[in-house]
């Protein structure tokens, strides 16, 4: 490599990073810290925050951990925001207890801290929590499945396509919410797998992705060829599970598919009849509202308040289906497509 090549490469590299960096000016600084870069849920959250920050004339700094559970990166991110003089930040905590002392440090320094999606332990360690009620989201699709099956609900056979062996919060909340909505005795509501209802075929892990969904459903179909309901932790897992149903010739509507998320591909799958019903959540809205709250706090010192009767501000979950059931409120896939997030 000649000197010129190296120099050219260096210049190109600098230009690249220059283009990547956001232009900074003297506006108020706000932060957004998510769990990881990769998950579309967090990507959409960041897009929502960015759009809103731009609209409000705030300078947004974003950070993410390297993997789900990476507390150290989030601690470093908060420290950076404190020293940058940020007005406040929104965070999706990777470790809801370990991050608490650092959050206290930030609040003591006068920053407004809004926790998104996953509440802290204890929940009041943050100024406010904006979250989706994952249990409620599960309950909605459980009620829908029960209502759709009618009399057949008592003899249903349910395949559970869950997230991961260690049952993270979102995993058991959605799963147990579905069971409650469907009318299954959940026993310990903080874990699945301890139920003894004969309608449960089994729980298999999907990693929340298509490939895991397909393999998990193939296995459960082997276990219970007479499956009539497929619960899925999210829409990618549902799409993968559907491929398994298709391969087994069970894509004729004989198996009810329910899911949670409300991402755009998922809502399209509701319209296409792949998914019977899904509970839609709003990560974009969550992040945008956090930006508004921080701006308001910076101007007036006023802090956001939780939803009456709850310890957090519920950003809501809406059932999306083209086959509504009496007594379960829902919107159709057309309306859902207007609100979807990715």
């Amino acid at each position, binding site marked *: 490599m000649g000197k010129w090549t190296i120099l050219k490469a260096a210049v190109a590299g600098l230009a690249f990073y220059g283009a990547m960096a956001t232009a900074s000016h003297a506006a108020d600084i706000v932060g957004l810290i998510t769990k990881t*870069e*990769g*998950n*579309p849920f967090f*990507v*959409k959250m960041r897009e929502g925050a960015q759009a809103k920050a731009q609209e409000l004339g705030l300078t947004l700094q974003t950070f993410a951990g390297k993997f789900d559970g990476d507390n150290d990166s989030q601690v470093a991110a908060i420290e950076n925001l404190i020293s940058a003089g940020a007005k406040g930040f929104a965070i999706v905590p990777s470790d809801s207890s370990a991050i608490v002392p650092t959050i206290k440090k930030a609040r003591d320094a006068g920053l407004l801290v809004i926790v998104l999606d996953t509440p802290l332990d204890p929940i009041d360690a943050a100024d406010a929590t904006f979250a989706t009620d994952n249990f409620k989201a599960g309950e909605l699709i459980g009620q829908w499945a029960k209502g759709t099956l009618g009399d057949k609900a008592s003899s249903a056979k349910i395949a559970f396509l869950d997230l991961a*062996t260690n049952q993270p919060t979102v995993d058991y909340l959605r799963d147990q919410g579905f069971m409650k909505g469907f009318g299954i005795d959940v026993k310990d509501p903080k874990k699945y*797998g301890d139920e003894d209802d004969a309608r449960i075929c*089994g*729980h*298999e*892990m999907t*990693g*929340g*992705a*298509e*490939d*895991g*969904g*397909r*393999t998990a459903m*193939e*296995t459960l179909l*082997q*276990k219970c060829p007479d499956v009539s309901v497929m619960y899925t932790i999210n829409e*990618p897992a549902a*799409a*993968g599970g*559907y*491929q398994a149903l*298709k*391969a087994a010739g069970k894509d004729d509507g004989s198996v009810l598919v329910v899911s949670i998320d409300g991402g*755009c*591909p998922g809502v*399209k*799958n509701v319209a*296409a009849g*792949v998914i019977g019903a899904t509970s839609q959540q709003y990560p974009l809205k969550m992040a945008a509202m956090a930006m508004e709250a921080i701006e308001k706090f910076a101007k007036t010192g006023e802090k956001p308040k939780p939803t009456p009767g709850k310890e957090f501000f519920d950003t809501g979950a809406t059932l999306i289906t083209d086959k509504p059931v009496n007594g379960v409120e829902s919107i159709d896939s057309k309306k859902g497509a207007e609100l979807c997030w*990715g």
Partner: protein
Amino acid sequence: MSDDATGSVSAERGLHGSDQSVASFDEDRGSALKSVQRFLHEYPTAIPFIVLVIGVLIFSVAAGGRFFAPFNLSLVLQQVTIIAFLGIAQTLVILTAGIDLSVGAIMVLSSIVMGRLTVTYGVPVELSFVLGLLTGLVCGLINGVLVAVIKLPPFIVTLGSWSVYGAMVIYVSHSETVRAQDIEAAGPLLQWLGHTIRLGGGAVLTYGAIAMILTALIIWYVLNRTAFGRHVYATGDDDEAARLAGINTRGVFIAVYTLAGFICAIAAWALIGRIGAASPLGNQTANLDAITAVVIGGTSLFGGRGSIVGTLFGALIVGVFRNGLALAGVDSLWQEFTVGILIILAVTIDQWIRKISA
């Protein structure tokens, strides 16, 4: 040692009457074990094969007729197809005493390129298919050049490129899945490997599984019947010695990583066939699963020893244990546990066999 003893007759005379059996081997004790060790050294693929047979037998009993049914056995083959593909790529690299942590990321990136170009940008499916294959090839080539020319350790190179290719996945896909229905409409070619052939007794073979076995056969032929294949083994055994013997080891490294990248791109095609969609999610541990298949299949992480057939058995063993344990109603946590034990056992046996040549 015994040659030395008979050589020095005068010294021997002074020791007259003492125990003469010092230098002899104990032929009786453990001779059965020794011959097993020697047999396994000669036929390393025998171990994974035996484990596979034992696994099938255990689950035929433990999980009842559901497991040992033609359909279920063919299902296991379908389920391991992707990991077996990556395992074939990984075997090539590990035979050169390297490692490729980026195989899963290369596969996902190639599948996203194929799916997104076709559906989102309306590129003719044949062209985006070729571009997807090229993506895998170029990713592998970059790895190979960094290993062979810049002489960086393969672990570091592919640890880095794993992140880089992973970031490219997010960039190219915008973290959005290309839906199965959209691919079906815009480019059914991408799902071609998802087609199936029904065999007797309910067994179902996917084109993807057949493609995987064909790939394995071709790579087996290349490794065992061509000069290049022997160069791969020689380079992995001792690259300095191979270089001094006139082998272009730099070329071998570049070729191996590039070929691995290309096989990952074919795996991407099979992946779209399997899940219908092109998704940036999932396959997070595909690289480690591929290494697991290679190791359980008896290929030595130290290079120069191992086989493609072993890797196929390795992938099948993991598939059989996962499927069998699930059908027997065992919690997923114990499925993970069992795979871990299998890895440790496989490496223990590998170390034991290696002692014969030490």
